[in-house]
């Protein structure tokens, strides 16, 4: 069976029916096969919309493609000196590495064996950049803080940590976070830490933070956040921290990049106290207030179907003194929402005319 004897249309249909893990291996067969894949309609479609996800945990990195409700595993990278017997070598961007094929989760996919250094990761990333192109989004998800996220071209660094019933080792964590690129996304659930977070920690520079935490100061995102979007759920929280956040934003003293913040607690907020303390302004009740929503900085397209932040529709707002920018404020039962508009107060009020 000679693939090249098939007409182009048939070759493309065959490629269409191959999984990405098979296409990855197929791309190593020859220069021509790589070109065939790269010029196929399937690859062109992929390049226009998709993302590649690296998920690192312990000594393994899974490279996958997120699709609706699942991550399609394309390749696994294992830090191991002893490659299994049935391996073969592939030239990845000029360097030879050991590969094998494993059957896991009802599918076959290649596995690459690497030393503890990042040479294989870097070579594979370069290969994928060349193979899938620059328009594809590349995310690195660290599921623990054993090894810093490598500095790779076009990588968005993410940190997902579910650390229930344990204490986070702050020394290790700070080493991880300070050696990693600035994080795009953090999703964290921790109960306690061995030491407080440093106010200067790179943790607070993350563009998007999503946490569920027992102690409101571990981490103290309400005071030190420097990113764009935060979704915080606390067992308990001091209302004055929320008030201070708004007032610091109003004065232009901090939170300059903030776009949206949501704080959820286990008891009701005192709405009147907050509104009074932040000097909230009110929209005429005869008018319909505008709804604030923004594209999420990050979402896992496989499992998070909502591309935008939760809508905030509120009659109350505050104005930043330095540039007259407006933020909608909504306090409802146990939730506090704060959404910054890309509009001055005049522009904001004109929306309702």
């Amino acid at each position, binding site marked *: 069976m000679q693939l090249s004897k098939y007409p182009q249309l*048939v070759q493309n*249909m065959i490629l269409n*029916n191959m*999984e990405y893990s098979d296409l990855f291996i197929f791309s190593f*067969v020859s220069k021509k096969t790589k070109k065939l894949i790269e010029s196929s309609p399937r690859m062109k479609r992929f390049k226009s919309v998709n993302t590649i996800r690296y998920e690192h945990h312990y000594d393994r990195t899974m490279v996958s493609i997120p699709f609706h409700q699942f991550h399609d595993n394309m390749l696994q990278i294992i830090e191991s000196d002893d490659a299994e017997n049935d391996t073969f070598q592939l030239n990845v961007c000029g360097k030879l590495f050991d*590969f094998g094929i494993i059957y896991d989760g009802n599918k076959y996919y290649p596995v690459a064996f690497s030393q503890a250094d990042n040479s294989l990761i870097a070579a594979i990333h370069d290969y994928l950049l060349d193979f899938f192109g620059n328009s594809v989004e590349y995310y690195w998800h660290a599921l623990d803080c054993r090894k810093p996220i490598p500095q790779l071209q076009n990588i968005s660094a993410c940190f997902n940590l579910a650390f229930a019933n344990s204490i986070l080792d702050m020394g290790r964590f700070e080493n991880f976070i300070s050696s990693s690129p600035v994080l795009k996304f953090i999703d964290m659930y921790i109960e306690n830490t061995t030491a407080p977070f440093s106010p200067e920690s790179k943790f607070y520079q993350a563009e998007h933070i999503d946490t569920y935490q027992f102690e409101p100061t571990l981490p103290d995102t309400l005071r030190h956040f420097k990113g764009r979007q935060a979704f915080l759920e606390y067992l308990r929280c001091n209302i004055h921290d929320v008030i201070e956040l708004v007032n610091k934003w109003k004065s232009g003293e901090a939170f300059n990049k903030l776009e949206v913040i949501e704080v959820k607690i286990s008891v009701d907020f005192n709405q009147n106290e907050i509104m009074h303390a932040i000097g909230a302004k009110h929209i005429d009740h005869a008018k319909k207030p505008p709804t604030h929503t923004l594209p999420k900085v990050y979402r896992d397209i496989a499992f998070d179907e909502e591309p935008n932040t939760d809508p905030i529709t509120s009659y109350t707002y505050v104005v930043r003194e330095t540039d007259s920018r407006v933020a909608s404020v909504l306090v409802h039962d146990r939730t506090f929402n704060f959404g910054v508009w890309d509009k001055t107060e005049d522009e904001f009020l004109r929306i309702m005319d």
Partner: protein
Amino acid sequence: MSSTEQGTSSAAPAEPTTAPESAAAPEVPESFYYVHGKDKVVHKVSAGALQHSALIHGMISNLGYTEEQAKANPFPFENIDGDILQMVVDWCNQHKGKPTPPEDTNLPKQKEKLFDLVLAVNYLEIKELLTYCCKQVAMMVKGKSPEEIREIWMIPTDAEDEAAEKEAKKRAGKEAAGETAAAAGDAK
């Protein structure tokens, strides 16, 4: 399964056996057409079954043949092996008037047969069967190393590709030189 008899030629086809009909007898008598492959074995196939093939459907849609005319003028597909055409006819009969299932597990497992079937189905423009076949071809390399894939799909190495390219260039050069010489000869 349809059964067939060995024909003598496309111009004088042997009396073919009839392809199986669907369980319910149609109210309007169905029209039949005749096809044969490289082996000249003629297959009688209903117009309903042939609808799967965009190529044949296009050919017959305006013919208005009588039964006798159709029998006397079987469609010759000399580029398709007899056993492959038989597979295609069987598939068309089995799936006549039915929605095609998401998978078809009855495709040939031998890669050369599958290869020929793909070419035939592509030529005859049978979209659903082509999709199944391409799926099956893609399945052949699942979990294989690059060297194994090279073997299964007979893909040349880079060195072989380069050598072939050089050879083709050399041949093209020679042909061009020959044409120039011939043109010069003509001019004289």
